[in-house]
């Protein structure tokens, strides 16, 4: 369960007070009437769904009732920053690239976890590859 810093209440609050509201910074097209069906469909339905850093909008529903933005890692669930509506994130694409690089490095160093329903155990890529090599 997340612990979320509300930029308006200026303190950490429990996730249960908040509602996630999807991707942040989705601006309604200025002139809807001139949008094509495709553009309108993109605005309505197509969202970023990154594995990694994501900017998302949350509502402090049981609290100050303000919408605000969170930059969060969708894998580790670490919240990197929260910021008010109308503001821009300070942690963005560059961080994303750096994170990915780190993740790759970590992956080659550690065993891959192939997760299952419960206590889960998985083989490392390298180890399995070597065994396969031996058998092939």
């Amino acid at each position, binding site marked *: *369960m*997340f*612990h979320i810093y509300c930029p308006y209440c200026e303190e950490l609050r*429990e996730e249960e007070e908040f509602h996630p*509201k999807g991707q942040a910074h989705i*601006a*309604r097209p200025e*002139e*809807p*009437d001139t*949008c094509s*069906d495709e553009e*309108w*469909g993109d*605005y*309505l339905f197509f969202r970023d769904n990154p594995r990694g850093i994501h900017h998302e*909008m949350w*509502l402090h*529903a049981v609290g100050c*009732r*303000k*919408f605000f933005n969170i930059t969060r890692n969708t894998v*580790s*669930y670490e*919240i990197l920053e929260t910021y008010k*509506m*109308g503001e821009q994130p300070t942690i963005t694409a560059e961080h994303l690239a750096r994170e990915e690089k780190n993740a790759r490095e970590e992956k080659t160093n*550690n*065993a891959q*976890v*192939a*997760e*299952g*329903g*419960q*206590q*889960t*155990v*998985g*083989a*490392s890529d*390298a*180890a*399995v590859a*070597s*065994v396969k090599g*031996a058998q092939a």
Partner: protein
Amino acid sequence: MSQTASQPNRLAQGGQVDRTQALTFTFNGHTYTGHPGDTLASALLANGVDLVNRSFKYSRPRGIVASGAEEPNAVVQLGATEATQVPNVRATQQALYDGLVARSTNGWPDAQRDIMRWIGKLGSPFMPPGFYYKTFMAPASMWMTYEKFIRKTAGLGRSPTQSDPDIYDHMHRHCDMLIVGAGPAGLSAALTAARAGARVILADEQEAMGGSLLDTRETLDDQPAAQWLKTTLAALAEHDNVTLLPRTTAHGYHDHHFVTLHERRTEHLGDSAPSKAGYRQPRSRLHRVRAGQVILATGAHERPLVYANNDVPGNLLAGAVSTYIRRYGVVPGEKMVLSTSNDHAYRAALDWQEAGREVVAIVDARTAPQGDLVAQAKAAGIRVITGSAVLEAKGAQRVSAARVAAIDVDAFRVTGKVETLECDTIASSGGYSPVIHLASHTGARPVWSDAIIGFVPSTVAGVAASGGARGVYPLDEVLADGVEAGVNAATALGFDVTVDDADLPQVASRHEGPVCALFQVPHEKATLRAPKQFVDLQNDVTASAIEVATLEGFESIEHVKRYTAMGFGTDQGKLGNINGMAVTARCLGQSIPETGTTVFRPNYTPVTFGAVVGRHCRELFDPERYTPMQAWHVARGAEFEDVGQWKRPWYYPRKRADGGLESIGEAVARECRAVREGVGILDASTLGKIDIQGPDAREFLGRIYTNKWQKLAPGRVRYGLMCGDDGMVMDDGTTSCLAENHFLMTTTTGNAAPVLEWLELWHQTEWPELDVYFNSVTDHWATMTVTGPEARKLLTDLTDIDLDREAFKFMDWREGHVAGVPARVFRISFTGELAFEINVQAHYAMHVWEALFARGEAFDLTPYGTETMHVLRAEKGFIIVGQDTDGSVTPEDLGMHWAIGYDKPFPWVGKRALTRADTRREGRKQLVGLKPKDASVVLEEGAQIVFEPNHAIPMPMVGHVTSSYYSPTLESGFALAVVKGGHQRMGESVYLPMVDGRVHEAEIVSTQFVDPKGERQHV
């Protein structure tokens, strides 16, 4: 001494049980005694009960193996009464109380005489892993029959069949530092943090705090460990920034240091929570802890060795043997053989011998063990056989001998001659596995350590493992490690503290020799042909099963686990997981870290559903929202409908002349007639009400509603329709202009909160430049709708408002008094009749309501509920959002073109989507009226509509009935429905095939069945 006589394995002294008190308990129908301080397991062992269960798959006899959370076998059914049954309780974790009743979970008629054991014995060769997948396929029609028999063998314990008499609750806690485990590491960490001034919670799963200090042979400051433990606990208790939670298991580690703790508050006292000072107390409590830093001082679990018949009662963990002797004063046998790969386990032999029983031999897999404990054992005259292991246990219901031989660990083979040692107990130890469960709940991957031959946790920031939990085992190092963890965490929290502040007790340091990596012990026969070597005792998974799985190409450890069911028991493989990985690694010719790693999921140990639920059950499962008139409705015998969380009167059945109660049909017909012919009243307080103020309020309304708002004058009311930006109808209601910059919006009951959020969303994110504020006033105003031809007459004497039809027109609102109470009255109608909606402050609602009834007596004022409201509005073709719409319906589909302001200057929400290809196409489903050909038929709501009733299945469906009622006014059934191209099909017939084979015919008609010109509401 009669007690010791009745408890043959109880020592005359030693341990922390109170021998002055006897507790009587029953196991499998036999009565025994034990003492305060016992667990059920220690009491069973004290009484010489070997066989505690039958195994899950093969029905083999099983005894107690461990002394704590890792126990796989001693899983019992607890409870003296039907309502207090608890399935699958580990006897090793259940404190003994007087009157405890327990049974084995498997075995019929009992675990001793179990008849399934024959099936297990004879059938086990035919039950390799995955045998279900390979059999029971022919003939196909028989599977459900086979399954019935398979299911009969399922499960361990049984569910109670009666409701739980106990209550549970939650405690939300916040702390700087949560320390899990009150062993030496946890205690020294807690003391350090407490002194630094941090808010500390120290939780421990056992009946007593102390962890390994409860049964260690070592001394602290030259005193028995118990002395230091007592002093330390007392010191912690004195800090008011420390919360001590004994009997409390941290079972789940969630994101951002949110940890759930399960505190067993009364399970040690009895079957059911006793009341305290006349008040109920919760049976157990779930603490939801938000911590700043977490220290996991959860210790380590000993691993058993995997050898043939290692499941026969009398096979125990070496550490458990010590625990039973030292903590409970129980020696679980006469003659013991110890099979070990490490020094630490030698304690069991020393303890056993000191308890006055015979140690037949210590069988050590290492060729040249050397360490202080080894020397001590030798000095005590115990025979130590090196380079060897127990290959096989002999015995049926209890160990009778151990077959021992020299082995080559690396080559995995037996190298020496087998010697058979007579004994009744085999203690084994294959080393220790740090308890890394909580650390890995967040997905942090443990790392294999060759140094400790086990996985050590990796942790996320803010979490640290300490002591045995990270593979640090010597007591002096554990204590220091705890201090260091405490200092680090306190420093991270901003407290000023250093390691030097701690006063660590003196512990004699002790030399330990290196450990040998032994998991499965080789047998003279190949694994597939050897007697069963159990890896996962609870699920009856053997080394041979794992080998078969790898033969069949299951090479991922996850596949092996799933194919064999290893680790899927209630112990979640605490004993077997690493051994299983080792066997898999051996079969695949790779190392353990190459085979994978192990990640655990919550829960560490199982948690009672009731504790997770807390008091969110029964009457408090979900809020019930009431209007200010609730007492009146209840007194009038209303039946209620759940609308969201609200309880709304559904209808008010009256007593019939014959004394019976009206049916819903009779009541609704009566209520409908009252409104159409006289006057009725509805409690409409649940409607959402939003106060909107600001110079841009009007502009905002124009953007959020589909229709126009520029010209609505103060004193006037308008119906509004709200869409999402996908063009689909999401809510409707009236909005009144209270003043130029002031509006009162109403929403449907269920959408009050979502609509307010919707307005805020658009204001805060898209149009912050608009000067407008929204505030909910739903609960502030009570609303009563007085409607029917007599409504005006009824109200005239009660109000100072001029009710004249010209002075107070339809869709006007007025301010004044009703029954002496300031009121806003709205002349809007959802029934099609003359109607006044009276809004007063909720404090006065009952006063006004009752005044209306006092005056209404002369008019037979009839209260009506939601059902009548639905009939009356449907007769007028008024929609209910969510009933006549389903998120795929546009305003045009509803025929509400009049409410769409295509020419409004601002591109309002929903507008663009209404011109998409699909919303423009022909043949959309459109709202129409349906008149059944047979007037006595009330079509089924949800009935599907077809044009060709004789079409073969699948039959093309062209719509469905959304609302359908019997109309007492029309004396006929009638319905609203959506039909493909319905607006162009007026007068056509459609068909409604029913489940019972009947096919109803109906005519497509206008949605306005009563007073289509709308004259009655204007009277």
